[in-house]
C-alpha cells in the first residue's frame, strides 16, 4: 500500500517546478495569485488617483508609466486600468488563490486522500494558468496597450472596429486559456471528492470547505464552457471577421451584440458564486472551530449552498434589466433573484447560530472570518436593491454597483482568502505566522476596506456613473470629490497594510515559530498529519468516525475537541443531563 512513497521525486524540476503533488501545486497557485493580487491592487490605486485628483500627474510612478502625458492618466489609459484591474482580480487573483490554491490544498487533505485523482492533469492546470497569466501580462506591452472594453468586454466595444488593438484579442485568448485551466481543475476536484474520500467519510461528514470547493467546481465544469464558446466567437469576430456580435457586418446578416451578453452572464452570474462558495465554506468551518462549537445547522448550510448552486443558473438576467429585456422575463428573473436570497439567509443565520454563545477564540483566522460575515452581510443587503428592477434601473452602472460587488467579491473573498492563509499557513509551511503582525494587518485592512467601498454606495446612490474618466467634472457630482479623496487615501492605507502581511509571510517563512501538527486544536483530517504533511499526506489513510466539527460536546472533559479520525470510545459517558450547548450535533 505504501510502495509508492518511495517514488518521492527528488530533482528540483520534478519537486518544485513540474510537481504533481497537490500541495506544491497549491503553493504555486497561491504565489501566482498573490503576484496578480499585487498587480491588480496597484492598478486600483491608479484608478483611485485619477478619481481623487483628476488629470493630475501621478506621484512617484507617473513619470515612468505615463510618459506621453507628463505623468497624468489619459482617458484611454484610465479605461485600460479599470478593464485590466477587474480582469486580473477576478480571473488571476481570486480564482488562483481560493479555487487554485486552497481547493488544491484542502480537498485531498480534508477528505483523507493521498493526492488528487489526476495529478498530471493538476500540473497542467497550473501551467495553463501560468501561460494564460503571461499572455495577459504581455498584452500590456503590445502596440496600443492592453484591453480597454471593460472586464465584461461587451461587443461592439470589444469588436474589431472600436478596439482594433492586439491587446483586446490577447485578453480574449488569455481568458480562454484560463478557462481551460479552470476546467482541468474542476474535473479533478469533482472526481477526487466523489471517488477518493477516506473510509467513513460520507458526503455529510465532509468539512464545509470541501462542500464549497466541490460545488464551485461543479459550477465551473458546467458554465466555464459557455463563456469559452462566447470567447471563441469573440476571437473569431476579431481575427476571422465572422460578425457574430456585430450587426450588419455582412449584407443581410444580423449579428447580435446581446447574444454575447446572454452567454457572458449565463456564465457570469454562476461565476460570482464560484468565487464566493469556497470562501463561504472556509468561513463556515473557521467559525465553528474558533467558536469551539459544531457548525450550527451543518446540513442546512451544505444544502443551502447546493440550492444556491442550482438557483444561480437561472438568475443571470438581473444583470441585463436595462438592455431591453421583455418585462415578463425581467420579472421572472427578479423573482428568482429574490428567491435566491432565502438560502443565502439560511447560510448567514447559521453562521450567527454557530458563534452564538460559543467560546470564541479571536485568533487571526477568526478575526478575518468574522469580518467576512460582516462584509458579506453588507454585500448581500445591497444586492437586493440591484435585484429589484425598479431600483436597479436607477442604480444600474453607477458606483453603487461597484460598491456592491466589491463588498461581495473583493471584501468577502479577499478577507476569506486571508483567513484561509492565516489558518492553513502553519500546515502548508510548518511555521506559525506572527499573530501580532496579523492583528495589525487585520485592523488596517478591515477598516480602510469599508472606507473604500461604503462611500461608493453613497456616490452611486447620488447618481455617479461608474467607469467615467472624470465624473466630478459634472456640476451635480462635484460634491463627491472629497469623498473620492477619502476613498483614495483609504485605498493607500489598505495597500500599505498588505506590506505588513508580506513582511509577516517572509519573516515567518524564515524565522517563524515551528508549527505543531494541530496548532488550532481543529478536528478535520488535515490536522492529523504533520505540518507540513509528508509526500502523499498521511502515514496511513485515516478512518473517519465523526462529523467535521466535534467541539464542546457533552462528556468531553479533558479537551473540547475530538478529531474526525478518533474512534468512538465505547466507554464515552452518555450524559443524560441537558447539553450545555444549545445546538444540534453535526450529522
Amino acid at each position: 500500500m505504501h510502495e509508492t512513497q518511495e517514488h518521492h521525486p527528488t530533482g528540483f524540476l520534478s519537486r518544485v517546478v513540474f510537481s504533481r503533488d497537490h500541495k506544491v501545486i497549491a503553493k504555486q497557485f497561491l504565489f501566482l495569485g498573490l503576484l496578480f493580487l499585487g498587480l491588480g491592487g496597484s492598478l486600483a490605486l491608479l484608478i483611485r488617483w485619477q478619481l481623487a485628483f483628476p488629470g493630475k500627474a501621478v506621484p512617484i510612478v507617473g513619470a515612468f508609466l505615463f510618459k506621453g502625458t507628463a505623468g497624468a492618466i489619459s482617458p484611454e489609459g484610465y479605461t485600460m486600468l479599470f478593464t485590466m484591474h477587474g480582469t486580473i482580480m477576478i480571473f488571476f487573483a481570486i480564482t488562483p488563490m481560493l479555487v487554485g490554491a486552497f481547493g488544491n490544498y484542502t480537498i485531498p487533505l480534508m477528505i483523507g486522500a493521498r493526492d488528487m485523482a489526476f495529478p498530471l492533469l493538476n500540473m497542467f492546470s497550473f501551467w495553463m494558468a501560468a501561460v494564460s497569466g503571461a499572455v495577459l501580462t504581455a498584452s500590456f506591452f503590445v502596440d496600443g496597450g492592453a484591453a480597454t472594453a471593460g472586464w465584461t468586454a461587451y461587443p461592439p466595444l470589444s469588436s474589431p472596429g472600436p478596439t482594433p488593438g492586439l491587446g483586446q484579442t490577447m485578453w480574449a485568448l488569455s481568458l480562454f486559456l484560463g478557462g481551460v485551466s479552470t476546467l482541468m481543475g474542476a474535473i479533478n476536484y469533482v472526481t477526487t471528492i466523489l471517488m477518493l474520500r477516506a473510509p467513513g467519510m460520507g458526503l455529510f461528514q465532509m468539512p464545509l470547505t470541501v462542500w464549497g470547493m466541490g460545488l464551485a467546481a461543479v459550477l465551473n465544469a458546467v458554465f466555464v464552457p459557455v463563456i469559452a464558446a462566447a470567447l471563441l466567437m469573440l476571437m473569431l469576430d476579431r481575427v476571422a471577421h465572422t460578425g457574430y456580435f456585430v450587426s450588419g457586418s455582412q449584407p443581410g446578416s444580423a449579428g447580435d451584440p446581446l447574444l454575447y451578453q446572454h452567454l457572458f452572464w449565463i456564465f457570469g452570474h454562476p461565476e460570482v458564486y464560484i468565487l464566493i462558495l469556497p470562501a463561504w465554506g472556509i468561513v463556515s468551518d473557521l467559525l465553528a472551530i474558533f467558536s469551539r462549537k459544531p457548525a450550527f445547522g451543518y446540513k442546512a448550510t451544505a444544502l443551502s449552498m447546493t440550492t444556491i448552486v442550482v438557483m444561480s443558473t437561472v438568475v443571470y438576467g438581473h444583470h441585463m434589466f436595462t438592455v431591453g429585456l421583455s418585462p415578463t422575463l425581467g420579472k421572472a428573473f427578479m423573482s428568482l433573484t429574490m428567491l435566491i436570497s432565502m438560502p443565502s439567509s439560511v447560510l448567514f443565520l447559521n453562521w450567527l447560530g454557530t458563534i452564538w454563545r460559543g467560546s470564541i477564540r479571536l485568533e487571526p483566522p477568526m478575526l478575518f472570518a468574522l469580518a467576512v460575515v460582516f462584509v458579506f452581510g453588507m454585500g448581500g443587503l445591497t444586492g437586493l436593491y440591484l435585484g429589484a428592477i425598479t431600483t436597479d434601473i436607477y442604480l444600474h452602472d453607477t458606483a453603487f454597483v461597484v460598491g456592491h460587488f466589491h463588498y461581495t467579491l473583493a471584501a468577502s473573498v479577499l478577507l476569506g482568502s486571508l483567513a484561509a492563509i492565516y489558518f492553513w499557513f502553519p500546515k502548508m509551511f510548518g511555521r506559525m505566522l506572527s499573530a501580532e503582525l496579523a492583528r495589525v494587518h487585520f485592523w488596517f485592512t478591515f477598516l480602510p476596506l469599508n472606507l473604500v467601498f461604503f462611500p461608493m454606495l453613497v456616490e452611486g446612490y447620488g447618481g455617479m456613473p461608474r467607469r467615467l474618466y472624470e465624473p466630478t467634472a459634472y456640476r451635480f457630482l462635484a460634491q463627491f470629490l472629497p469623498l473620492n479623496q477619502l476613498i483614495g487615501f483609504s485605498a493607500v492605507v489598505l495597500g500599505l497594510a498588505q506590506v505588513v502581511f508580506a513582511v509577516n509571510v517572509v519573516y515567518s517563512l524564515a524565522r517563524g515559530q515551528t508549527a505543531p501538527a494541530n496548532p488550532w486544536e481543529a478536528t478535520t483530517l488535515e490536522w492529523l498529519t504533520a505540518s507540513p504533511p509528508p509526500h502523499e499526506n498521511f502515514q496511513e489513510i485515516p478512518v473517519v468516525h465523526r462529523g467535521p466539527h466535534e467541539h464542546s460536546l457533552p462528556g468531553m472533559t479533558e479537551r473540547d475537541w475530538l478529531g474526525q479520525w478518533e474512534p468512538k470510545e465505547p466507554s464515552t459517558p452518555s450524559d443524560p443531563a441537558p447539553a450545555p450547548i444549545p445546538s444540534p450535533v453535526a450529522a
Partner: protein
Amino acid sequence: MNAEAVMDLESTEPVAGSHELTPGKVGMWVFLVTDALSFGGLLIGYASLRAWSPVWPVPSTVLDIPLTAFNTFLLICSSVSMVLAVASAEAQDRKGVIRYLAATIACGAGFLGIQAYEYHHLFSTGLSLSSSLFGATFFTLTGFHGAHVTSGVLYLSGLLAGVLAGKFVGPHESHIEIAGLFWHFVDLIWILIFTFVYLV
C-alpha cells in the same frame, strides 16, 4: 501517475472491474458534461442568430447532403466498431481490440478526409467564416466538432499503439472503455450538428 495508480494507493482497494466506477470514468463523464456545454454555447448562438436573421439559406441548397449523410453513416459505423472494441477489451481479447480499434480509427480518419474535401469544395464556392453568418456558424460548429474527431483519432491511435505494446488489456483496465465514452459522445454531437446545421 494515472488514475488507477492513485486508486491502488487507497486502503479501500476498490476493484476496477469493467462495471465499477473508477476515477478515470468519473473524470471522463465530468469532462463530457463540460464539453457538451461548450457545444451547447455554440449551438445556442447558432439557434439565436439563425432565428433572428432576415435571410438564411436553405442548407440543402448550399451543402451536399448525400455526401454528409454518408459521412454520418461512417461515424455511426465507427461507434459500432468502438462498442466491439470495448467488448473485446472486456473479454480480454487483445486481437479483437486491435482489429476494432483500427477499424474505428479508419472510420474517423475517413470522416475527416471527407470533411476536408467538403471544406475545400465550399471554399471554392465562396463560403467562408467571414462570408455570412451561415458560413461563420457552419465552419465554427463543424470545425469545432472536427477538432474533436481529430483528437479522438489521435487518442485512439495512442491507445492502439499501447495495446500493440502489450498495455491496456487486462483484468483491471478501463482505458478502452473510457476512450469509448469520448468517442460515442463525439458521434452523438455529430448527429445533433447534422440535424440542425444540414437537415433543418
